């Protein structure tokens, strides 16, 4: 069965036990890293995943890639259930799902030559051997904008942007269907960041790749994504096609995130109303009751602390735009004044 959706995640939960130290390691709590997340990644499209440190976005990505066992819920890839498969049974799917990591320094072995690093997937999966492998690797290097003659160099001889290209070439080697990009450009300078983003979008066009694109930079996510999902403390706050979520955010957290992102334009910066959230993100070990955002929310009422809002389509929104909020932001509503009023109290 083929349909338009490549990855379907249903109600995924990932808890990490918190144990006491010492001989008898009792479990005293759970870090609720991901708590009931469902998502779909369409074929050939990009799902952008946004959220602050500790919201569970990287954990979610690792669960989808099969790098972490899930506590409950299912991950369906290309029509097959791949939840908690054994190592052996996971192997064919590892070829289809690849990852690009944030740190271009830490994710490449400094003692191995670039040709060997990019050729590893071929060796591991025994798909290409001998002299054919070198040719393939050089093709890949050329495709991602590296000089194929640098086959025998070490990672240290490359700049940050070039190293990220090495990571991209390695991810491409086995012609995957899905590439999970975990903050692929946040360690790079602005001018280099744009080079890598353009490369990723060219590759998507040429190979029909799907991306799960994780970043904390909202403008980068807006640039690359078709669909967007905003996470807060392990749960989905808001999700939908890019345009409605960015232009008409319904969750107060999304609205605050968007207003907090620095705009590289002095006039916008001077005129926009910034919604300043008070306090920090609470601990995922002991998340707030009800809506997890309510202690920081400018619109919170008593109900928010008691009852957890369901992810649903709000009045006036397109059917694929869902928000988990009891009191969604209305068009034209100015949250900045609400926020400052609360601070004054």
């Amino acid at each position, binding site marked *: 069965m083929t349909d338009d959706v490549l990855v379907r995640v249903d109600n995924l939960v990932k808890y990490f036990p918190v144990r006491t130290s010492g001989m008898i390691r009792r479990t005293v709590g759970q870090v609720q890293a991901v708590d009931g997340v469902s998502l779909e990644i369409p074929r050939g499209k990009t799902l952008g995943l946004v959220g602050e440190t500790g919201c569970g976005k990287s954990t979610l990505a690792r669960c989808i890639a099969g790098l972490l066992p899930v506590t409950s819920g299912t991950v369906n890839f290309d029509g097959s259930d791949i939840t908690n498969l054994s190592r052996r049974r996971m192997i064919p799917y590892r070829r289809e799902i690849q990852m690009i990591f944030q740190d271009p320094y830490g994710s490449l072995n400094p003692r191995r030559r670039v040709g060997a690093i990019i050729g590893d997937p071929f060796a591991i999966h025994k798909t290409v051997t001998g002299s054919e492998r070198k040719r393939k690797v050089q093709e890949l290097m050329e495709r991602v*904008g590296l000089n194929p003659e640098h086959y025998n160099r070490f990672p240290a001889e490359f700049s940050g942007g070039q190293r990220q290209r090495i990571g991209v070439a390695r991810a491409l080697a086995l012609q995957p269907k899905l590439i999970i990009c975990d903050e692929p450009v946040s360690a790079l300078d602005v001018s280099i*960041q744009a080079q890598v983003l353009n490369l990723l979008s060219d590759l998507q066009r040429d190979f029909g790749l799907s991306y799960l694109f994780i970043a*904390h930079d909202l*403008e980068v996510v807006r640039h690359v994504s078709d669909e967007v999902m905003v996470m807060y403390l392990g749960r989905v706050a808001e999700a939908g096609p890019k345009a409605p979520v960015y232009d008409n955010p319904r969750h107060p957290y999304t609205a605050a995130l968007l207003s907090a992102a620095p705009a590289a334009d002095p006039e916008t910066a001077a005129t926009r109303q*910034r919604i300043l*959230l008070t306090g920090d993100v609470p601990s995922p070990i002991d998340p707030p009751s009800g809506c997890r955002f309510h202690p920081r929310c400018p619109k919170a009422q008593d109900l928010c602390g008691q009852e957890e809002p369901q992810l649903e389509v709000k009045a006036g929104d397109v059917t694929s735009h869902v928000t988990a909020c009891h009191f969604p932001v209305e068009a034209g509503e100015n949250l900045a004044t609400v926020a400052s009023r609360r601070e004054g109290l």
Partner: protein
Amino acid sequence: MTLLEVEDLTVSFPTADGVVRAVRGVSFSVDPGQTLGVVGESGSGKTVLTQTLLALTPGAVVTGKALFDGTDLLQLSQRQMQHIRGAQISVIFQDPLTSLHPLYRVGWQIAEIIRAHDKTVSKKEAAERAVELLLRVGIPRPEQRVNDYPHQFSGGMRQRAMIAMALANSPKLIIADEPTTALDATVQAQILDLLLNLQRDSGTALIMITHDLGVVADIADNVMVMYAGRAAEKGTKHDIFYEPHHPYTKGLLESIPGSSAVGDRLKPIPGQPPSLINLPSGCKFHPRCAYVLDRCVTEEPTLHQIGAEFAHSSACWLPQSAAGLGDTAEAIREETVREGRQGAAVVVAETIATSPEVL
């Protein structure tokens, strides 16, 4: 009256591989109560520049002048510098976790900086001041939190504590080196807002070092764009964002997703920033510049005035009228390129046009 006047500052580090020329002749000034944004990529010399002012670059060969309130900072002995550092000029670093001592209570660390500069303050008074400072930077329940260790603070709170330390002796100038880079967007917004309010209340001057043009757009009055150890362009915030003259400034603006200068496809600057040991000839930006001219390959341009405003200057051979992001400016740039690219620059331009980064 100018608070800080830096003239022709050069900083180089002799290393085994050769001399690293980190800063090569930079001049700028900061007035009281003003914010100067220093923008540049990794290795552009922006951090070395400000650390040199505070004698935090041991082993560096420094020339030039840096007049702070009439005293040349570069001529001071270590002991004299200790009276200025932390008292009249203070610094906020990027990483608040490694800038705070993990084994001392936060309140103790703030009190220490007060007593280090004024021995007449008793320990008790200093501890009380620490509570006041934490309250001022928006730490809830400061009378309890002063007794916490840095690891008990979140990232945003640690940066608030750093700001409290920077404010402790009511400095005339605060140097903030990427103070929000390690923080999440909503916390970054809180910290920028705090810095702005504190500056408004106290009239402190601020030098904000950052790679993020968004941060500069938010809080700077004037901006200096650095490339390979030099100021590529200086001007008011408006000049830099709306009338950029240097192709590097223009390139930076065009490579930010979501900025007004960008369409569907980002326009990255091709190539990589140069090695500071082995700098290219002529203009240091020419191997990456879309408007490279013959003279760029051999002669390095110095800062010259752009337009009527004295404050706006750019180190580029393009004519003054080439400033701006509009079509008129683009036409002037293209015209200049047609006339000025006959010899050496032709090859450079071809290499740029066929480099994998722009394809």
